[in-house]
């Protein structure tokens, strides 16, 4: 075997989540009460554009969730280093590290160094970068080179896009429709699903991707950080961290919130009291304190048990998972409270009374009647919380109780940027890159969440 797969905890949970989502999709397609609101979401152009962007992020995150070790060439063992598929794809970005800071598209270093000249004298100068623009003879060629490469990138992107679109239109043409008519129909739009928006968004993403492919092997498109790592690479690696925090936290908290919330609302009495006291107590502890305490104790544990954490990736992953769990524990209370209220309302409805009169057991009433009827609350909360959690990670990492410092994350990038902003001249690109990537994800998630809420919230129905 040339490679050995490594399953990190968060990888496994992401696969589980993927399976859950797939099952849910199949289930939703078969059930009209779920299909109807989702098709309403699918009719909103903005939401579908946002979904395309989200899917692009998810694709990056999934590529970064397949981990393995490579077999070493000579020896009969595997490398200690754990890589992901994304690392392999971004091999040039990953390995081409400079000595320190360099600005986007720079070919000279950002800081001056003392250079030994061939004639033996020494001079302060901005040396050429090892990789960035290394193929150029002089700095004057840079603008032309970038222009040519960008033009080629755009050309390729447009070509690929048109080809794919052509196939798509051909595949969707109506029987008895000639190709011309099918194209006209696509251009006119007005179909139930806003295909034009979807293809436009895809086109823009393709352009960005193509530029990245054509330019990043020759330049540091987003510059490099303090230790010379390409910022584009760091930003792409951070996608997975953001997604994991945004989704797995929900996965952790959902069972608590759902079971406790519905049970409290349905049974009332002492069960309600116990659950209410629990979440009132939990939510009155300052969340940051709890998280800091938990993360610090985990660090102590990892320091005293180094044998359980054999390499740095596993350590970082454990800490990430722990962060998800602790964020989940502190954030289930609000959903739980919502669900309790909703259940209080539902339990008085006649169909619950009818089920009780038929002798249906409480457990069955909860699973058959109450869970499906509070699902819209859960769904709305989950999609709305997602962006909040991505931002929370950034804040926590900034404070220093977030993900492991060795792990790439937007929060860590911002944390590093704190000092860079104070430099003269300013190093702005790390912060800008983190901001742009995070903004793209959070904006897409919020737009999509809005559409989901509109479709599922019964108060907004016609």
């Amino acid at each position, binding site marked *: 075997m040339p490679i050995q797969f490594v399953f990190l905890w968060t990888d496994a949970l992401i696969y589980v989540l993927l399976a859950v989502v797939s099952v849910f999709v199949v289930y939703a397609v078969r059930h009209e009460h779920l299909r109807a609101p989702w098709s309403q979401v699918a009719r909103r152009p903005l939401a579908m554009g946002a979904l395309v962007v989200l899917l692009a992020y998810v694709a990056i995150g999934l590529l970064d969730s397949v981990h393995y070790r490579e077999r070493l060439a000579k020896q009969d063992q595997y490398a200690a280093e754990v890589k992901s598929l994304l690392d392999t794809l971004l091999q040039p970005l990953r390995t081409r590290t400079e000595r320190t800071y360099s600005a986007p598209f720079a070919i000279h270093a950002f800081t001056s160094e003392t250079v030994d000249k061939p004639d033996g004298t020494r001079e302060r100068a901005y040396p050429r970068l090892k990789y960035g623009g290394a193929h150029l003879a002089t700095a004057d060629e840079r603008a032309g080179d970038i222009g040519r490469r960008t033009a080629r990138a755009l050309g390729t992107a447009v070509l690929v896009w048109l080809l794919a679109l052509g196939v798509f239109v051909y595949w969707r043409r109506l029987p008895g429709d000639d190709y011309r008519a099918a194209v006209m129909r696509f251009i006119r739009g007005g179909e139930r699903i806003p295909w034009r928006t979807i293809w436009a968004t895809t086109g823009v993403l393709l352009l960005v991707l193509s530029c990245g492919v054509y330019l990043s092997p020759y330049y540091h498109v987003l510059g490099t950080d303090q230790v010379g790592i390409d910022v584009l690479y760091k930003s792409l690696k951070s996608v997975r961290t953001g997604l994991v925090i945004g989704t797995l936290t929900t996965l952790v908290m959902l069972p608590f919130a759902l079971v406790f919330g519905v049970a409290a609302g349905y049974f009332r009495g002492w069960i309600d009291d116990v659950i209410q006291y629990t979440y009132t107590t939990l939510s009155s502890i300052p969340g940051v304190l709890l998280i800091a305490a938990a993360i610090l104790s985990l660090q102590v544990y990892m320091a005293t048990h180094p044998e359980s954490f054999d390499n740095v990736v596993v350590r970082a992953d454990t800490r990430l998972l722990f962060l998800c769990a602790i964020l989940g524990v502190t954030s289930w209370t609000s959903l739980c409270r919502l669900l309790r209220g909703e259940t209080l309302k539902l339990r008085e409805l006649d169909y619950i009374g009818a089920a009780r009169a038929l*002798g249906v057991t409480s457990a069955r009433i909860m699973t058959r009647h109450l869970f499906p009827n509070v699902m819209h609350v859960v769904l709305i909360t989950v999609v709305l919380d997602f962006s909040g959690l991505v931002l929370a990670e950034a804040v926590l990492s900034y404070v220093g109780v977030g993900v492991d410092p060795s792990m790439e994350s937007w929060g860590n990038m911002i944390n590093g940027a704190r000092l860079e902003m104070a430099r003269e001249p300013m190093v702005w690109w790390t912060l800008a890159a983190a901001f742009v990537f995070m903004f793209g994800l959070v904006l897409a998630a919020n737009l999509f969440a809005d559409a989901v809420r509109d479709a599922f919230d019964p108060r907004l129905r016609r």
Partner: protein
Amino acid sequence: MERGTRSRGAGNDTVLRVENLKTYFDTPEGTVRAVDGVSFAIRRGETLALLGESGCGKSITALSLLQLVPEPAGRIVAGEVWLGDQDVLALSERDMRRVRGRRMATIFQEPQTSLNPVLTVGLQIREALPDVADERAARRRVIELLESVGIPQAPERYDAYPHQLSGGMKQRVMIAMALAAEPELLIADEPTTALDVTTQAQILKLLKELQRQTGTAVLLITHDLGVVAEMADQVAVMYAGQIVEFASRAAFFREPRHPYSQKLFRSLPNRLKRGVSLDVIAGAVPRLDQEFRGCRFLERCDFAWDRCRAEVPRWLEGADKGVRCHLYDPPADRAAREPGSLANAVASEGTARRATPERSRGLLEVKNLKVYFPVQRGLLQRVVDYVRAVDEVSFSVPAGRTLALVGESGSGKTTVGKGILQLIRPTAGEVLFDGQALTRLSERELRPLRRQFQVIFQDPYSSLDPRMQVGEILEEGMRAQRLLGDARARSKRAAELLAQVGLPASARHRYPHEFSGGQRQRISIARALAVEPRLIVCDEPTSALDVSVQAQVLNLLRRLQEELGLTYLFITHNLGVVEYLADEVAVMYRGRIVEQGGAEEVLTRPQHSYTQALLAAVPKIELPAERTALPVSGRDGRA
């Protein structure tokens, strides 16, 4: 174009004249013609009742008059509305605001939601007063208004909040608000539908009295023939967006002319129809997003013939009355009428006599039932008092019979039903079902017994789980009671049950929201029947339904009782239904049973003063003599 009642509205005392009003709604499914060419006029001091079932466009007509049609979906596409000399539809929104509440005031159905809960009632009425500069004078005027609508201790009530008033009081406040600006026209949209019979009687009396004093014209929108009989001077019957009949009250009740009006009367349950199937109006109101080629009532009419299919009936006008039906076409036009259909119409009135089951001992016996709800106060939630929802209630229902539990809202009758079903555990007393004391059993012991007593609820919209298919809903009880082992047998049984309540077997794979209110109520009945119960507690099963649909459900319940020997505990406030269905009656008032006995006896010779008041409050409908609808040729009123 047809000209409706223009001739009538020519006089100077006409307050409102509506000409050919059309209000359409744009929906994804197409344009819905909610109001399609409505014309009428109201004179000063007159009450016009706009009568119709839900979805016929009567409320949209009212909203169109006020230019309050929900936008952007709805739009007034044609017509004129003249308030005095003012064309209301020509007014801008800004000018319209001066008309609404000043010249045209409205009372809505739901007094609970029409008042702002965070403002005192005095302030809310004050807002409706047209410019009164002096604060003290305004207060005085509001108190006057409150007194005029019969609110006792008016000066203190000025500072009361809506939740401190009862439903009837709130509706009085609404009336005071509406009358504050001394409007020329009062639009009352189902003003008493949410109220109890006795309160309804008071409110109707008040409205009449105030109308006599002020001379306000009233447009009364209602579905209740009883209210029409009490209040109206003129009656306009609406069906599917059009007025199909117009007549004075006396003429209308003496002799309704349109087949739809006749059907409405005949589907009303009452004592005279005991043991006989009620006349039902088959089918449903047609979809209004289509172009009509013929009569809109075609599908449901017993008299329909070729012409009704081919030609839209014209508005046939007579002296103070009009009708939209081919039956009343001038004789030359209707030579082609088939003779057979009348016989069908007569035959459709079933004559099955009720098979009276023998009297046996009580299947259900309730002894001294008490349900108290604790009132908790203070930091430690100490119980300071109890709400005695049900207090010392005893009765017994023999197998195969129907006991009607009659009472107004808040009398505790629904709580009695839940107490019997053990959905609420009674505080004290015994419920014996077939000799077994249900009150002493634990939830676990009760579970197998539950199949013997089932329930049908009032609201057809909340009684079915919207997330389950009808098949799953029906099979749930069988599964919980482990009645049929395998899935195929259950599915087959579900199909049988649907057939039993008159729904197609394909309904199993559909969701409740795809059905109408009446169909949903049938599904509820099928769900109850699924576990083969002996007793069914029917908690107001028809009060959320239209009259014609109510007749279908009542017929079904009666037939099922005959076929399956079911015992019913029928909880209702509708005395017509009681007269039609019940063998015995128990009247509840404030948690206690005040009178009990055979239906005939209690309803004709009430002993208790409350029963007497209740019976007196029910609006009297003088039913037209049961005659066939064939118009006698040469009758006046035909053009």
